[in-house]
């Protein structure tokens, strides 16, 4: 993984975000760990007291973000990496259309991402260095019958990050989209995922891949499978049970 000195990880209380924060701190990077559940962050800080700066925050509290972002970069002493790892995926039945659940996904997966990453993008555009990592998903590659809004929210994130990449690569800034497949986390705890990798190995792969801007699947097999899935014509795709 590249050498980072100052990082913000949004969504650092569990899953991939927590692992990324932990591995960064272990490598000697100062990390501002942002999440709603402060007690979880406090645990993290106790493991790495010199490297973790915990910050209690709900990503839907959009108005608080500019001041918090500046406060955290000030406390860190700089910024060369931001990882947006907050994500919501409530259980949705195949025949269910629950606006509250859908809204929560869009707010956490998209609006929160835009609110945080816009801050980082503006800063990096001016400082001419930095890396933005967004945790997308293979689920964002197609609209599928099981998770319409989760799929759409990740597709939004992918497109938004692609646009950021086009804006910022000319300023020397890397924008990295990672699209994990199934990962064993709290978010996926209720699901039957036989091939899921651990959050620990997902985080390690993501940090390694962050050296290069662009879109990354976590394994070459995923890259092949999802190349095919992306290219299945809609009139066939709608008849498949995936």
């Amino acid at each position, binding site marked *: 993984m590249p*050498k980072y000195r100052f990082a913000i990880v949004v969504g650092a209380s569990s899953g991939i975000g927590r692992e990324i924060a932990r591995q960064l701190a272990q490598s000697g990077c100062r990390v501002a760990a942002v999440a709603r559940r402060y007690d979880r962050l406090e645990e993290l800080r106790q493991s790495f007291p010199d490297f973790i700066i915990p910050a209690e925050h709900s990503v839907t509290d959009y108005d608080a973000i*500019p*001041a918090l972002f*500046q*406060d955290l*970069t*000030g406390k*860190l*002493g*700089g*910024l060369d990496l931001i990882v947006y790892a907050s994500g919501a995926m409530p259980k949705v039945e195949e025949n269910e259309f629950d606006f509250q659940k859908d809204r929560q996904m869009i707010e956490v997966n998209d609006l929160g991402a835009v609110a945080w990453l816009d*801050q980082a993008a*503006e*800063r990096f555009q*001016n*400082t*001419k*260095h930095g890396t933005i990592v967004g945790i997308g998903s293979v689920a964002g590659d197609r609209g599928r019958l099981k998770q319409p809004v989760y799929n759409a929210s990740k597709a939004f994130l992918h497109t938004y990050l692609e646009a950021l990449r086009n804006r910022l690569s000319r300023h020397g800034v890397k924008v990295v989209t990672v699209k994990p497949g199934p990962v064993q986390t709290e978010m996926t705890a209720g699901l039957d995922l036989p091939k899921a990798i651990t959050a620990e190995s997902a985080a390690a792969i993501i940090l390694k891949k962050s050296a290069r801007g662009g879109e990354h699947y976590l394994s070459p097999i995923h890259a092949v499978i999802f190349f095919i899935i992306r290219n299945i014509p809609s009139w066939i795709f709608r008849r498949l049970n995936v």
Partner: protein
Amino acid sequence: MDLPKAQRLVLSPDSIREFEGFGMAARADGYLVQPTTTEGINEAIALAKQTGRHLVPRGSGLSYGDASILAEGIVLDLGKMNRFISWDRETGIAECEPGVTIEQLWRTGLPNGWWPPVVSGTMFPTLGGALGMNIHGKNNFQVGTLGDNVDEIDLLTVDGQIQTLQQGDPLFRAVVSSAGMLGIITRIKVRLKKVPSGNVKVYAESIPNWQAQLDAFEKRAELADYMVSWVDCFGKGAASGRGLFHAAWYDKDADSESLLEMNQDLPPKVFGILPKSQVWRFLKPLNNRIGMRFLNLAKHTSSKFIGNRRMHKQGLVAFSFLLDYVPDWRKAYLPTGFIQYQTFIPKTEAARVFAQQIRLSQEAKLEPFLGVLKKHRPDSFLLSHAVDGYSLALDYKVTERNWSNLEALCHRMNDLVRASGGRFYLAKDSTLRPDDLDYLGPNLQVLRDLKNQLDPEHILDSDQARRLNLFPR
């Protein structure tokens, strides 16, 4: 003023920039403020207080290390306060705002036969920055530092008060040399030097070793106006210290043509074809131990045959501003940059300490790619770097892999300097540690007392001051 977090002002997000030192190895992000008036400076100080941030004064950013950067602080760039308040072509006295550069000064003065009393190797430093660091030139042994040639300054302290300080005032001698950490210099009254022409007569002599270097300086110290010597840091054993000595005298043959700017400006092309702005691209592939060993050897060898022990005539600009001769030469050190390591050693110890520094560098396979030797005289500024002796300035390439070894090498060399009664120079420093500051003796406490008196909240700060724990909280 410590407002609750929610009420704190947010700094303008689009004012953040990455700032670096001249060596490009030290970098930090900060919020840029560019005042054009003293009210603007006061506003920046107020902004720092309101946002709980600190403020670093910055001129052209030509200190080699981390003296004019401050991570996540407010960077007070004074480059836009670059007006002349007055200029008297009869007496050669200029009153300037702090952002006036040495370049502006010589362009203003030379047509009437006035030249800045002290200049650095590049013409781009601001006078405010140059005075903060109390820079010296190749004439340090004759005329002292820039601070010795300034009659008066105005100092703006963080409480908004402006006071005028004269050359003899103790506070003048503290503000000059303390890197902007006591207050902001807002006006400078400087005496230019009357020169008979825009030329110097330059004597060159190829030098075989350290003792011959110092002998060459001592022999001409009485009469020369400028002296400098280049050192090939790849020279080993009996050849250690080999190089090329230059002494220069103001050319007394009246030559009014030479006073014209157009006759001083350097040609923009090399050999009439290659634009100088592109020359660094040709240097880059040579910017490694093998290439630099070859270039240094070639320069030393040619110095024995071309112009050795002869006089030649040169324009003041070409002679003085060697660092500007190849624009952007620093880019050959990208992406990781370089540090300059310059230390000041008393006369009797100089040859021994410099030989040891070079030997340690060679043993570590970290030979400096450039070495420059100068003669100095002591002065009474609070953080004076000069001694009755010599300084050796060494350029070391920095890479991600060599940094820990390079830092360890510099720490060992620092110990040699301290043991010999030598001194350090904040404008060139990247490797000092808090304990090394004992070279300042009781002056360190005087500085700290002044800081607590003039800037009790430590609003003025820099990455260097933090690294050195210059002002303990």
